[in-house]
């Protein structure tokens, strides 16, 4: 097996794992805070219905959290098994950031999750509420560290090179590297939107089965209000993030926009099939000058094309994934606004809307995965921009071992994912009513 095959297999395996993993934290980070809201409502009103709502969604949370934990443990090992060169070169920076995630977030989440799930009758109410907040806080802290590391890999800063390896010169600069604030804000919003659509979608699914389920209608409304407020904010933050990327990783932007040649008054390509061989777009439909306006807020500005860069990422995956993400984002804005209009102003819950919202349950996952594909593939051929190439970090594990473990992981993921979906649908179908029954029984 030659080096490029090993690289491809190692990337495919790590990519599979990280893509599978990110689904679950994306949901839990936002959902944890929505749970805090449910828990506070129960504390405030003392209504049994809020308690049932809280219990139902803690179950969804626990399930999702477990999926995130187990696939996350896998990642902590795959850094070593798949990318030994990564730790060798930048371990002095990546290591401490990961260590801080474990120390400040993992134990906190894991321990208080136990209290939140099983401790309601064992601790005083304020402590149970505090545990719920600590779980949410833990998930957010976890996101903080992991996005600090990821952003540093995109836009490294604050390091010095000593004897061929990197060490931190200024930790503040390492953590608050140029792309970090944008990426953190973008991801946190993505997480809240994902959770909002899951809450609304599963509640809609329940309402399709039981139209008079009042708690389900209430959580449906909660989800859509959160989405209607945050979805447009996400568009704004996404735009700022894009401008930041243009400043620090212009080749990524050029690939996202399939811009082969440097242009003044750059056209915005709406539809095309990027042709990597001939370095041009086939079947292109473009709006003149709009690209320059979006990227530089000036119709005549010059934007560098792919020809200007010695290294650039593959074009087609970025071009399509970016459009899928933006397209999904626009749909989420429109749908959440329309839903708020129908649910609150017209005060109706038409079946068609419930069906659409059910279909959009996992819209956040689609957009988030596409976004990560854009930013991660967009960093190639670098693992750490300008410092370490992906091909120089890969390990020397044989094809047989990689193939065997790849198959094993894939089987486990498929099984887990199918089971997750089955249980989620089942829980949602039964709704809060099952929770009140369960609690009255015991």
């Amino acid at each position, binding site marked *: 097996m030659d080096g490029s095959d090993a690289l491809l297999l190692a990337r495919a395996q790590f990519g599979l794992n990280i893509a599978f993993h990110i689904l679950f934290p994306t949901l839990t980070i936002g959902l944890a805070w929505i749970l805090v809201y449910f828990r506070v409502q129960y504390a405030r009103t003392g209504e049994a219905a809020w308690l049932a709502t809280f*219990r139902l969604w803690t*179950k969804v949370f*626990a*399930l999702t959290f*477990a999926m995130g*934990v*187990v696939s*996350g*443990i*896998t990642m*902590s*090992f795959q*850094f*070593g*098994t798949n990318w*030994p060169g990564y*730790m*060798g070169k930048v*371990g*002095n920076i990546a*290591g*401490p950031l*990961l*260590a*801080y995630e*474990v*120390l400040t977030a*993992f*134990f*906190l989440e*894991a*321990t208080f*999750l*136990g*209290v939140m*799930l*099983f*401790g*309601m009758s*064992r601790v005083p109410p304020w402590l149970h509420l505090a545990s719920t907040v600590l779980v949410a806080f833990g998930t957010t802290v976890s996101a903080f560290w992991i996005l600090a590391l990821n952003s540093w890999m995109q836009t490294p800063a604050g390091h010095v090179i*000593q004897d061929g390896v990197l*060490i*931190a010169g200024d*930790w503040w600069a390492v953590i608050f590297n140029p792309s970090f604030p944008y990426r953190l804000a973008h991801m946190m919003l993505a997480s809240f939107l994902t959770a909002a659509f899951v809450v609304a979608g599963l509640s809609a699914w329940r309402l399709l089965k039981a139209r008079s389920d009042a708690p389900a209608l209430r959580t449906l409304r909660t989800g859509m209000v959160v989405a209607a407020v945050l979805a447009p904010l996400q568009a704004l933050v996404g735009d700022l993030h894009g401008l930041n990327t243009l400043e620090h990783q212009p080749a990524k932007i050029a690939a996202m926009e399939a811009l082969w040649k440097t242009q003044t008054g750059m056209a915005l390509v709406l539809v095309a099939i990027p042709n990597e061989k001939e370095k041009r777009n086939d079947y292109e439909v473009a709006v003149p000058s709009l690209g320059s306006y979006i990227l530089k807020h000036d119709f005549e500005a010059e934007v560098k094309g792919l020809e200007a860069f010695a290294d650039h990422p593959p074009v087609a995956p970025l071009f399509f994934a970016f459009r899928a993400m933006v397209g999904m984002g626009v749909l989420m804005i429109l749908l959440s606004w329309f839903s708020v209009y129908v649910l609150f102003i017209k005060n109706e819950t038409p079946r068609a809307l419930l069906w659409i919202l059910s279909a959009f349950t996992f819209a956040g996952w689609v957009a988030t995965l596409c976004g990560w594909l854009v930013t991660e593939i967009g960093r190639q051929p670098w693992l750490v921009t300008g410092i370490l190439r992906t091909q120089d970090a890969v*390990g*020397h*594990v044989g094809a047989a*071992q990689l193939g*065997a*473990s790849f198959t*094993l*992981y894939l089987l*486990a993921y498929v099984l*887990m994912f199918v*089971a997750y979906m*089955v*249980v989620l649908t*089942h829980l949602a179908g039964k709704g809060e009513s099952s929770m009140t029954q*369960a609690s009255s029984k*015991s």
Partner: protein
Amino acid sequence: MMPDLPDIPILALIFAGLMGASILAYVLLDGYDLGVGMLMPAADAREQNRMVNSIGPFWDANETWLVLGVGILLVAFPVAHGVILQGLYLPVAAMLVGLMLRGVAFEFRLKAEGWHRELWNWLFWFGSFLASFAQGVMLGRYITGFASGFGYWLFAALVGAALCGGYVLLGATWLIARTEGALQKKALAWTRWGLAWVAFGVALVSAATPLVSETVRHKWFNFPDTLWLMALPAATLAAGVRLWFHANEKSFQEKNLWRPYGYAAAIFVLAFAGLAYSIFPWIVIDRIGLWQAAHPSALRVVLWGALVVLPFIIAYNVFAYRVFAGKAKENLYD
């Protein structure tokens, strides 16, 4: 005479200690919940619920010690991290799949019904077993320096089986403390079975390590050091014998609830100490030493964080164990 080895920076020593403590904490804590998982087929359906509920609030935090251990390896000894994890590629993959299956089976079995529930019960057992066995294989591969050849793999497989026995022992002694009635009686019997396996495993590893490495042989068979070193196996044996007599329906008393787990833990601590003595100051025997650590700047920043945060982690872990003290019930979501 052994050749002179480089000095070990104090920071590297501290991190080696932290890593050891973290791995030991993992083995003692996740060990019992993996053990409970492996004991599932030996119990009936109602007992199974109580068994799973006894570990429900803890398993996630227990596994975090593994992440901390491998995290410290990664932070403090990046070169060894790459060598060890590549050397253990397949058993690591098997362990991870095992941990994944049992981790989610935990949630799924609570929510599933009918044959789905049976399937997740089975996967919970299988995942627990696979993870435990793989960890034993990792240990076996690690102490033989990842040597290739059928004999070495057979040895690793035997260590894998022995570690399963060890975790069953921890799980059974945990259940003694956390259950009552017929299930507790069963747990007493399981404890003796586990103990027999552990005796076999400890003997196997103790005999094999000196054979594999001259460095290790030299450390143990070097008069007069050998004399006081014998205190270690002697203490292990004593703990085993005490446990054997405690794990008896007639002599067991409810006031000595935690003694069986205590003795089982003592066996693990002693075996761990022996292994640490064998390997020190290497991190991969005869290949990578503790002096091949990360840059002091990275170690210092993590050490500060660890010093501040670890007391809190220990405190709220203790808090969680106090909240969920007492005998396990059949219904988890109270």
